[in-house]
């Protein structure tokens, strides 16, 4: 199902939680709502579910306006962070509950519940009570319960943050598999960029209630629209060199300079950040206008590569460099910049020049 949000806005008293948020989610996609905590992503999810009323704007499910529809009429499945299983019912009871409400005949109810339990690999534990299950198992039951009524839209609110690291990885893949098998349009809220990058078709990145960028994960990483997006994604975080743009050069406060890529023409004298991902440096033989003359401060072995901590124009930064050179602290090196992963942002507005 295609989900359209148009100018979605939510005020809680004087605070604006979501501000003029417009996004279209494609049919059958798994979309992550990503952002730091307090960015309004959960609010958006709750508005999609009908739990939080909308202040302004509208929500369309396949063209049908559901903005004022109560949750039970929206045809959605919802999984909470704490799973919210009914403690007095067995796993079977939990999964059949939505069907019971819909007055599905008992035999069909059970059949469908068994099918769902199979899908989430919980068939053997149908008579258990929730408190007898591990976190991951509860999670599976919660997903089965959300899917058994064949929702048009599946909403997952930070579903993995209550799990330990290993289980989180496993459940992440499980969610991806289940989503691909059922092809249900899915919205997944998380603050974990790695989680979002690894499982989603599209990522919607938010900050302070506003949409920043809506794109494929790789696009988001390679073509951030602004400083915030570039900063939010990537580990280690992107290196930011503050300075000014002068005559096709980036000039650091101490006068160190590097020529900007061709076609990159910010306004003369603009205060900018040159932002470079750690993997976008190349080690070159000698000085050049387009190379950054840097000083190695320390080197860490990571196995196939070396991660070096360097300094350029008074700014410390990290770079992945080939281990072949055997860099040592104190070495002066000349680093070239790749085309990928090198951006120039306006320092005040965060807007991207190139």
């Amino acid at each position, binding site marked *: 199902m295609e989900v359209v949000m148009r100018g979605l806005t939510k005020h809680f008293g004087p605070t604006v939680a979501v501000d003029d948020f417009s996004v279209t989610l494609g049919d059958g996609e798994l979309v992550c709502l990503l952002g730091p905590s307090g960015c309004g992503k959960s609010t958006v999810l709750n508005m999609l579910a009908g739990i939080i009323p909308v202040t302004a704007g509208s929500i369309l499910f396949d063209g049908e306006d559901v903005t004022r529809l109560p949750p039970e009429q*929206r045809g959605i499945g919802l999984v909470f962070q704490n799973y*919210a299983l*009914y403690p007095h019912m067995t796993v079977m009871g939990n999964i059949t*509950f939505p069907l019971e409400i819909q007055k599905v005949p008992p035999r069909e109810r059970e059949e469908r519940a068994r099918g769902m339990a199979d899908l989430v690999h919980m068939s053997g534990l149908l008579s258990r009570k929730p408190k007898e299950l591990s976190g991951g198992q509860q999670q599976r039951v919660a997903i089965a*319960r959300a899917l058994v009524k064949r929702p048009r839209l599946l909403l997952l609110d930070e579903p993995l943050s209550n799990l330990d690291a290993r289980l989180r990885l496993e459940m992440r893949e499980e969610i991806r598999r289940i989503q691909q098998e059922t092809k249900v349009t899915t919205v997944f809220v998380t603050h974990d960029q790695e989680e979002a990058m690894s499982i989603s078709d599209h990522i919607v990145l938010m900050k302070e209630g506003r949409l920043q960028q809506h794109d494929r994960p790789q696009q988001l990483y390679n073509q951030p629209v602004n400083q915030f997006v570039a900063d939010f994604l990537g580990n280690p975080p992107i290196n930011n060199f503050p300075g000014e743009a002068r005559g096709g050069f980036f000039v650091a406060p101490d006068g160190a300079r590097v020529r900007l890529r061709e076609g990159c023409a910010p306004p003369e004298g603009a205060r900018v950040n040159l932002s470079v991902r750690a993997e976008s440096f190349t080690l070159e033989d000698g000085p050049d206008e387009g190379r950054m003359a840097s000083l190695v401060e320390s080197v860490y072995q990571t196995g196939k590569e070396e991660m070096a901590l360097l300094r350029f124009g008074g700014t410390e930064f990290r770079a992945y460099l080939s281990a072949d050179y055997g860099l040592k602290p104190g070495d002066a090196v000349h680093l070239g910049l790749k085309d990928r992963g090198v951006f120039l942002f306006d320092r005040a507005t965060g807007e991207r020049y190139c």
Partner: protein
Amino acid sequence: MTDLRASRDLARPGTGLGTALFLLGVLGVLAAPASLLLGGSRPLALALLALGAALLTAGLMLKPARRVLSVSGRALRYALLTLGMLVMVFPFFWMLSSALKTAPEMNYFPPSLLPRNWLNFENFRIAFEKAPFARYFLNSVLVLLGSVTVTALTTILAAFAFTRLEFRGREVLFSLLLSMMMVPFEMLIITNYQTIVRVGLYDSLWALVLPFMSSIFYTYILRNFFQSIPAGLYWSARVDGSTNWVYLWKVMVPIARPSLVTIILLNALASWNSFMWPLLVIKSDLNRTLPFGLYTFTTEVGANNELLMAASSVVVLPMVLLFLFARKQIVRGVARGGIKG
């Protein structure tokens, strides 16, 4: 640190003399009341007690074996608990025993502890003949069922509304209700009485049910429990398609069952034992409930205590049975309320 010391103490062998003196002392102290019961004189008992206490203290000073101390400590604890139990149970026992005695037996001196004939139900027959206890019983049951069912319903609905429904002034309204709990029942009696008389329900069973169809206190207790149920459950259920009504009865009430049972039992007990209100609004004999009926029966049969005890047994028995059957539920309800299960 303390653990270490305790274990060292436990391992300490203790002196044989200390242990012996201590045990002798215990024996002496126990012998004192025993000698009294067996017809010994009071000075003898006092002497035994003093001697026992002296030996006990001496033994303690000489450090008796740790095991002996811990066993006697446990024995003392059980002795105290048993004593407490006897104090609580004795009146009930006395009531049942007296109900089975004949009139002459009642006047024995010293009084006999047990009835001569355990199957003497004559007193019950006479009591039931002298006053319509069956009718009182039926009235009590009707009033109890009426007020308990309706109270449970109103309590559940109100607690839900104050927990999950969003409406303007919810908290203010609830504080207002809570503040009404400060008004003593005795003050409400007058206005309630006037109301009952005005609406023409004086001297009817309705007068006993109508003022007791809701309870702020129980609403408060249940609301607290409802609030401990995570909101995620509510929204899950709503998304699953249930309305407030369905959620309340299919999810909230089953989860709150222990609390509910406790509330219902407490309420039943209060209804069953209520005395003052029936005394005010019931006039005719046939509309009396058990406690009130028993009261009038007292004045009628005067000194025939065996009849009174028989009647009292009938009044008390249902509640005792109810407690026996629901004991686990009551305890669980209280415990759950405490630890926020």
